[in-house]
């Protein structure tokens, strides 16, 4: 919290004294696992299995790590710890909330049924609803919505990292439906969780053809480069992994040298 720079290498321009945010920061510290943090801090990156899974070595042990879940937790912690101090990723073209909401409602994952009423009406409601929250979203989260109901800017959470924009429609829908807008702490928590979900790297948004492009592995635009040099680098310095990661298979020990010697 005392660092002068944020995870996105922006100068920390505001000191946050909101009890709700300070409590959420304390909760991150309380559920953190010190040994896992040490492992992440000192690991050697081995390679990507897929956009979702990667291998890392720590001391004599080899681990399989769920990059999607770890990156989601990383972005949640950045949203809470760098709260109200984000830079802005300005979209080169405004994104109409109405179109984004309609795209999301067309997706089966939205769970839309005819009983919910026409999609057009829901999309219009989402636009008006989020426009009313625009001032707070811009001030605390650098999420910019203009008066015409377009998304114009997204928070810059991590240096050199841009979220996969295919996740933007579902993010907009979930902002309106999954965030608790009534209680301050729950609002910041659920909003940060939805934003982190959007920013986490997702296998389905990495095009199939890109999986096979070995020649692009060293290019700064490839997903493999981003995973290794942006995400895992940030895991070393900015992620305090929660204890449950060692129990739910998100950080899984595959092998250790002493046992392999025996074999």
């Amino acid at each position, binding site marked *: 919290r005392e660092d002068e720079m944020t995870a996105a290498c922006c100068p920390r321009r505001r000191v946050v004294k909101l009890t709700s945010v300070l409590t959420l920061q304390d909760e991150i510290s309380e559920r953190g696992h010190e040994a896992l943090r040490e492992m992440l801090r000192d690991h050697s990156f081995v390679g990507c299995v897929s956009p979702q899974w990667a291998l890392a070595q720590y001391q004599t042990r080899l681990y399989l790590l769920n990059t999607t879940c770890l990156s989601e937790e990383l972005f949640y912690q950045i949203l809470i710890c760098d709260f109200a101090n984000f830079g802005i990723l300005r979209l080169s073209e405004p994104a109409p909330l109405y179109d984004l909401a309609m795209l999301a409602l067309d997706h089966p994952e939205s769970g839309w049924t005819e009983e919910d009423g026409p999609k057009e009406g829901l999309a219009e409601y989402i636009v008006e609803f989020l426009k009313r929250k625009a001032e707070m979203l811009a001030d605390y989260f650098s999420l910019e919505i203009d008066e015409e109901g377009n998304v114009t800017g997204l928070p810059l959470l991590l240096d050199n990292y841009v979220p996969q924009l295919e996740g*933007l429609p579902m993010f907009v829908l979930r902002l309106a439906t999954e965030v608790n807008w009534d209680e301050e702490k729950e609002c910041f928590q659920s909003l940060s969780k939805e934003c982190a979900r959007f920013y986490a790297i997702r296998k389905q948004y990495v095009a199939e053809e890109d999986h096979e492009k070995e020649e692009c592995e060293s290019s700064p635009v490839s997903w493999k480069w981003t995973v290794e040099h942006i995400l895992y680098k940030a895991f070393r310095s900015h992620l305090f992994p929660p204890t449950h990661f060692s129990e739910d298979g998100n950080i899984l020990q595959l092998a250790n040298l002493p046992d392999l010697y025996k074999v």
Partner: protein
Amino acid sequence: SQNIKILQIPFSMKTLKLKYRKHMKSDLLYKEELCLIHHL
């Protein structure tokens, strides 16, 4: 506010719509594949 770091990122609603619909299709195929594996 003059200290805020602002970066411009390329975005096109037309491209997003195309990519999104493509992903939607592959998501459905993936789910059908999972159902088939489960059935087998």
